[in-house]
């Protein structure tokens, strides 16, 4: 993708993030995700019904990369089953960590395909995924057969 287009998408998701709001509805699972080495700190709210991610919101203070990554993540993951979401997340992590990944399956998230060049930004891009995985595990823990 053209680097200028990539930057525009990131900036757009930073300045006008999707799904950025706090949720008080108790049907949502709430988790906090923060990076030890920096100051990003976000809350993630997720509504899972019958194994499908129905809605995701996030809120908090974070840098451009974390905020854009969160915004894109919420758009990409809503509607996916837990299994599909996990596949997406592990594919995303592979891209960030410079392991083989499937480029066709990532949607808008491919704007971060070169973030590894800034080592200190990798954790920013991964931050919302760390949170969403925590939430999914929490859901699975509560819905064991």
């Amino acid at each position, binding site marked *: 993708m053209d680097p200028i287009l990539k*930057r525009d998408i*990131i*900036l757009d998701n930073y300045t006008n993030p999707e799904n950025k709001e706090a949720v008080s509805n108790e049907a949502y699972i709430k988790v906090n995700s923060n990076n030890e080495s*920096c*100051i*990003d700190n976000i809350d993630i709210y997720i509504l899972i019904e019958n194994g499908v991610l129905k809605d995701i919101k996030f809120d908090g*203070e*974070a*840098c*451009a*990369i974390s*905020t854009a990554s969160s915004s894109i993540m919420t758009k990409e993951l809503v509607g996916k089953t837990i299994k599909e979401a996990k596949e997406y997340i592990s594919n995303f992590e592979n891209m960030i960590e410079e392991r083989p990944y499937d480029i066709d399956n990532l949607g808008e998230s491919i704007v971060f395909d070169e973030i590894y060049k*800034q080592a*200190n*930004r990798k954790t920013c891009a991964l931050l919302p995924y760390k949170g969403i995985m925590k939430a999914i595990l929490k859901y699975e823990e509560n819905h064991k057969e």
Partner: protein
Amino acid sequence: MDFKRDFPMLNKDLIYFDNGATTFKPKCVIDAVTDYYTNYTANAHRGDYNISLKVDMAYEDVRDKVKEFINAKHREEIIFTSGATDSLNMIATGFFENIIESEDEILISDSEHASNVLPWFRLANKKGAVIRYVPLDSTFYITIDNVIKAVTPRTKLIALAAVTNVVGDVRPIKEICEFAHKNNIFVVVDGAQSVPHKKTDVQDMDADFLVFSAHKMCGPTGVGVLYGKKELLENLEPINLGGGMNESFDNEKQIYLKELPTRLEAGTPNIAGVIGLGAAIDYLNKVGMDNITIKEAQLKHYLIEKLTKISHVDIINPECDSGIVAFNIDGIFPQDVAVYLDKYNICVRAGNHCAKILKKAIGVKNTVRVSLYFYNTFDEIDALVELLKDKEKILKEMI
């Protein structure tokens, strides 16, 4: 003086504005540390052979240097620790655990560093004591009047930084000590951000305890100082027991401790670090502490003057007297500003700077912080300001 010649790190094509976190080391400090490891490695206070004696002398010589540097009355009042954090924990646990009782009050402020907050929290939790905060004025300063207002008959201790690490305000420590001592209140001073930048005279300020770290004053990491008035240190119980600090012990569990200062330095100390601290003090004395203060003030005023002209820069502490400037760029997360500047090899800190309770008082959680030292230059400030002028450029390049 030619600082570029003295500091190897000043020749790395970097602009370093994170001196509140740690400072660069002059070659003489690096050489002193290397000299110990290369030419006379031995333990201190242990051997009857020549190089061990040389280590003793070098180590104890630094104690005298520190004594002179902060104008302590006795050399036994200087205890070497691993840093200001270690010193504060030793004071809180070893001294104040025997002083503070249930319902007693410990007075701190919202702008203290974590190391001057958490040891007091633990002490208060343990003893059922109360933590109170000196209110900050509209410029985030602590005034003597506000200290007086916050003191109650139950106040036993005031613990404050002489200069804070986020807003850089300089506290009226001497007046605070004078007032406190009239009311039988102890004063602990966190000197981590003050001792490296201005002349310190513990007898004049009359603090009961003062702590600081070597690495923030051109010295090595992992070494610091605990100063305490002799009569108080006599009652500071060593947290660490072990070699070097005991006179003798027997199998009836009797322990006989050595005198100050050795009693409070259990185990093999950071010998190389202490020797490096000595070299750092020599270097700072050569530059001149008054010159350091003046140069930092000039740099700071220059930076403030330039930043004030940029409409999208919001300076949190334009008034303060130290070399610390905290600011934000309108609409840009501080970390993104730091990442942007890093692309031009300019090192600044973004965050809450370990002062997590300050956000309530200043209404801003995170900031970009420039902390200056005497080796910074006006040209470096020009380079920084130039990069901050164009907000579109920051937005474009921060990703």
